Every structure is written in C-alpha cells, then in structure tokens.
C-alpha cells in the first residue's frame, strides 16, 4: 500500500523551475533512495513531504502530494502535526545545544507530552532504536556536542524517531560522516525500515544500492527513472541513468 503519492508536482524557486511534473508512489515500510547529480532537485522534492520548503520565501508548488490519502498542502492541514508524522534527518548532524536526553525529549515535549515517565521511556527506547544507547547511557545529561559526528547523527535519528513518525526523510544523512559511522547509519536504516517508511537522498550510489528497495533517479528537475533498486542498478531503462550510475557524469 502506498503511503506517499505525488501527482504532477511542479515546484518553482521564484522563476526557476526546480521540479518538473513529477509523479511517484512510495510504499509503506519500504526504503526509497533518491539519486542524481547535485542540483537535480532530489532534496527539494524530499523537503516537500514535510513542507520544509515553506520556510523558503518565493516558492510555489503545483500538483498534489498525498500522504495517507490526504493532500498535505490542503487547507485544513496543520503543518506541525504533519511534521510530527513525517520526521526528518538532515545532511549535517544538527543536535540542539542541550543535553543528550533533552535532545531526544524535545520532540515529545513540544508535542505536549508532559508525563516525565512517558518521556523517559520514549527517550530510552529511541536511543536503543538508534543503536546509541550503549554509548550514551552513562552521559545522558552531557551536552550533545560532546558526541562524535556519527553519534550526533544517530542522536538526530533517535530524536526524529522519538515522536513515532510514519515516514522518515533523510537528506544525505551520511555525507558528512566517516565510513564506519556511515556503515552504522546504513545498518540502522535497514533496522528502522521495520517501523517506518524511509525516503533517503544520497550521493553515494553504493549506499543507495545497499539500503533501498526502490530507487528514483533525478536529473535536471525531472524524475528520469523510478523502479526497483536492483533493476535500476543492473538494468536501467534510460541512457541517462546508465551514464550516471556508471559514473560518466555527476
């Protein structure tokens, strides 16, 4: 069953036509990777799913994006509620200047959960889910900035997972990390897939092939090809895809 459905999406930054007539469906509890050269619109497309592009002035959207059958750009949509359902992990680890515990508890607190026991339970659960618990259980009150980059990124994943989203958007989550941290994140993605639908933007084609069920290739604001990862990497239909994955450009 599809959880995300994009229908003829066009997106403009001012007069720049950033996304051109994109339609796609993403199935529940699957991992979809967006690949493509820089500036091809894959991050822009990802950020439409939790309305993050609303923050950028002078942007315009045409077409529809449905999540669970509901138009998320519709009139009666509460954006903060939507963002609770659609979590996001960013390119660079961006923990708050707070303690590790407070970072994970933040999303729960802003969503009105006041019961400390519930919060604590969710924090522990999320840290365990992000494979970070063993590393931080003795220093939950320490600043999140004391962690390494890879740990910070897993903390950000734990933070996003704490509010129990249905979908997790990941915008190049491992691009600022070393290979070992990257491997841990990838393993985590395979693990989290059991609970949430994951959409991941990546520059790293091996990564896309390792973690995703389906892959979409973007080029110049268009979605050139979308299909099962295995097919895209072994037997792409389009020449542009073929050229990109074999490293001839990008």
């Amino acid at each position, binding site marked *: 069953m599809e959880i995300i459905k994009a229908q003829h999406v066009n997106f403009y930054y001012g007069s720049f036509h950033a996304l051109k007539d994109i339609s796609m469906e993403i199935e529940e509890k699957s991992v979809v990777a967006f690949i493509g050269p820089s500036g091809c619109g894959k991050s822009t497309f990802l950020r439409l799913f*939790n309305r*993050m592009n609303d*923050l950028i*002035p002078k942007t315009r959207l045409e077409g529809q994006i449905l999540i669970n059958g509901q138009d998320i750009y519709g009139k009666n949509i509460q954006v*903060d*509620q939507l*963002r*609770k359902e659609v*979590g*996001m992990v*960013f390119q*660079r680890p*961006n*923990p*708050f*200047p*707070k303690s590790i515990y407070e970072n994970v508890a*933040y*999303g729960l*607190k*802003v*969503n009105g959960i006041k019961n400390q026991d519930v919060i604590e339970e969710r924090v522990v659960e999320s840290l365990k889910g992000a494979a970070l618990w063993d590393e931080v259980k003795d220093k939950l009150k320490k*600043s999140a*900035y004391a962690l390494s980059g890879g740990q910070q990124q897993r903390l*950000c994943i734990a*933070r*996003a997972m704490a*509010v129990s989203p249905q979908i997790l958007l990941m915008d190049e989550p491992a691009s600022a990390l070393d290979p070992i941290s990257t491997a841990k994140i990838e393993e985590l993605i395979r693990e989290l897939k059991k609970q949430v639908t994951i959409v991941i933007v990546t520059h790293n084609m091996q990564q896309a092939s390792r973690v995703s069920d389906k892959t979409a290739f973007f080029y110049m604001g268009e979605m050139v090809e979308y299909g099962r990862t295995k097919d895209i990497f072994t037997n792409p239909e389009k020449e542009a895809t073929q050229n990109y994955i074999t490293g001839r450009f990008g």
Partner: protein
Amino acid sequence: MKKILEQSVKYLFTASGFITSFIILLIIFFLFSEGAGLFRNHIIDDGYVVALNKSNPVNTLSANQIKEIFDEDITNWQEAGGEDEPIQVFRLSDLLSIYSEEELGSEYEHAGSKIKETILQNEGIIAFVPKSLLTDTEGIKTMPDQTIPVKDVLAGTEWFPTATPSPLFGILPLLAGTLWVSFFAILIALPFGLCVSIYMSEIASEKVRNVLKPVIELLNGIPSVVYGFFGLIVIVPFLQQLFNLPVGESGLAGSLVLAIMALPTIVTVAEDAMRNCPRSMREASLALGANKWQTIYKVVIPYSISGITSGIVLGIGRAVGETMAVLMVTGNAAVMPTSILEPLRTIPATIAAELGEAPTGEAHYQSLFLLGVILFFITLFINLSVEYISSRKR
C-alpha cells in the same frame, strides 16, 4: 626593496599597537594616582586647625561630626561624645564681632592671642582658625591631624566636597544613584529590547527589517546631549504631571532616557545573535513538529543566549557610563536615593558637573578622580562579564 617595505610596515603596526596600549595604561595610571591622592589629604582644610578648650573631654572628631557641628546640626557636646555643654562655634570672622579693631591691632598682630583668649574663656567652644595664628597652644586642644579615612569615603553616605571646615567625600549616594538609575533603565529596556530583537530576527519580513534595522542603529549615533534635551523637555514634564511631583527631574527620568539609549545596543547585539542561530537548528525543531513560537523560545533563544546576554550587559555598560543625558534630567541631588521618583546623582554626572569648579590638585579634584576609578572598575567588571559570557562554551 619589497622586503624592506614589508618589514617597515610590520614595525609600524607593531609600534602603533604598543603605543596605544601604553597610552591606555598611562591614562589608567594617571586616574589611579590622582584618585589615591585623596587619602593623603587631611579631613580639615590645609593650613587650618580645629581647636577646643582643654577642659573639653572630646579628643577626636570625625569629618562628619565637624561638618554637623559647623552646620549647627549638633549643638551640644553630648551628641559628639562629650559632656552636656552647648557648643559654641567660632570662625575667624567671628573675631571681629567680639573684639574691636583697636584691640586686634592695626595689622591684626594681636589676633592670635585674642583667639587663644576666646578659646580659654569658653569651655564649649570649637574654633576653626588658621594654623599660623594659633602658635601658642597652652590650654588649648587641637584636633589631631588625621588624613581622610578610606572607610569614610567608600562607606560614607554624604557627599559635600565643598563643605568647610571639613568636606565630606562619601561616595555611596553617587554609587547608589548610578546603580539605581542603571537598574531601572535595564528593567525598562530589557523586555522592550528583547521583544524588538525577537520581532526583527524572527517575525519581521525582510523588507521591514531592512527599514527597521538602520533606524535602530541610527539611534546609536545620536549625541547623548540630544537625548538629554529630549528627556528634559518631554520626559521630565511628563513625569512631573503623571506622578504629581514637585520636580520632574528624577531618577526615573534618567532611567527612561538611558533605556532609550541602551535599546539600540541591546537590540542590535541580541538580534545579531538570534540571526546567527543556524537554519539547521530551526529546521530540526520545526521538523519535529514544534511550531514557530516553541522554536523561538526553546531553540533560538537558548542557542543565542550568550549573545543576548552580551547585548544586555553592553547595554548596562552604556547606561552606567552615560554622562550628559543623565546630568540633564536626574536633578543631581547627591543624596542616598530612597525612591526612583526623587532627584539623584550619578558618578559620571558628578565628575562632569564638578570638575570645572574643583581646584586642581586639591581634595575635591582628587575625589573626582577617585570616582573615575570607581567607574572604571564598574565598567571593567561589566566588560569582563561580557568577555566571559560570550566566550562560554555552549
């Protein structure tokens, strides 16, 4: 050739750095040496002596007591630690009302002996006379020649630098005035400044900000005397009417003017700090379902708290050191402030108002430098706090 040029430029820069530091140190040294000179002065004016009848059990009098006696606030020796005996104040000018010119001699050559005679005749007398006239002190007790005690200055509550025979240099009223005015100024400027900076950094559109920010920064460039003028013709009469005061010049008027003056500093620094909160922080918060307000007060403000605090402390610094505007609107009464609606006087205003009439090198002059030293320490403390706050790790 190029190398020589580079070398000489390097030396030029080094030299200018050293010269600047040296000049600053020189100024501080000058301030301190003049200020410390106050404590080498005597409590009684130089060349004069305060004399009592030998039968009077009082041996020492503080500067404060001497002033009260000569102001006739104290009229009985009992109040100064002596016996129940009315105090008779005697100044040199009183000599002419007691003795005729013939008795004193054509060139006042008998003045000395007549003074002595007067002192010997009156048990309750206290005489303030030139030392040179009182050469024979048999049967007369002169007050010991003590220097101004540090305690009387730093803990003194009365500022009468021109009183005779013994001026009082208690700095507490001025210090309290300064802190009192600054405190209220910040109390007014802080909420207002924070609101403006939050509005400018988080809510206002780019267009509005592009107009507002230069306007607020323009406030920084207005000379303080203009603020003082504004305070004098607008704020002072307004306060006088509002609170039905006998005079509108009051601590509150000073606080209001200072608040307006400190506002641009607070706003620009705090706004910059909030704008420096990275977009990724805001996005992280919003992506977790936080709304705009939650993001502002749970992420943006905590993230930029050290910058905001620096802005506030710099604003306090501006308020503490401000001279002209405060001088114009606070009424300048050097008394311990009991209410913000009464006239009071700040340290910088005192220096500015009195330095012109204080004779160079004398106690009054030096006391003003001591005030400068105190002010220096206050602002130094403020600047160090700014350094500490802004260097603190998140």
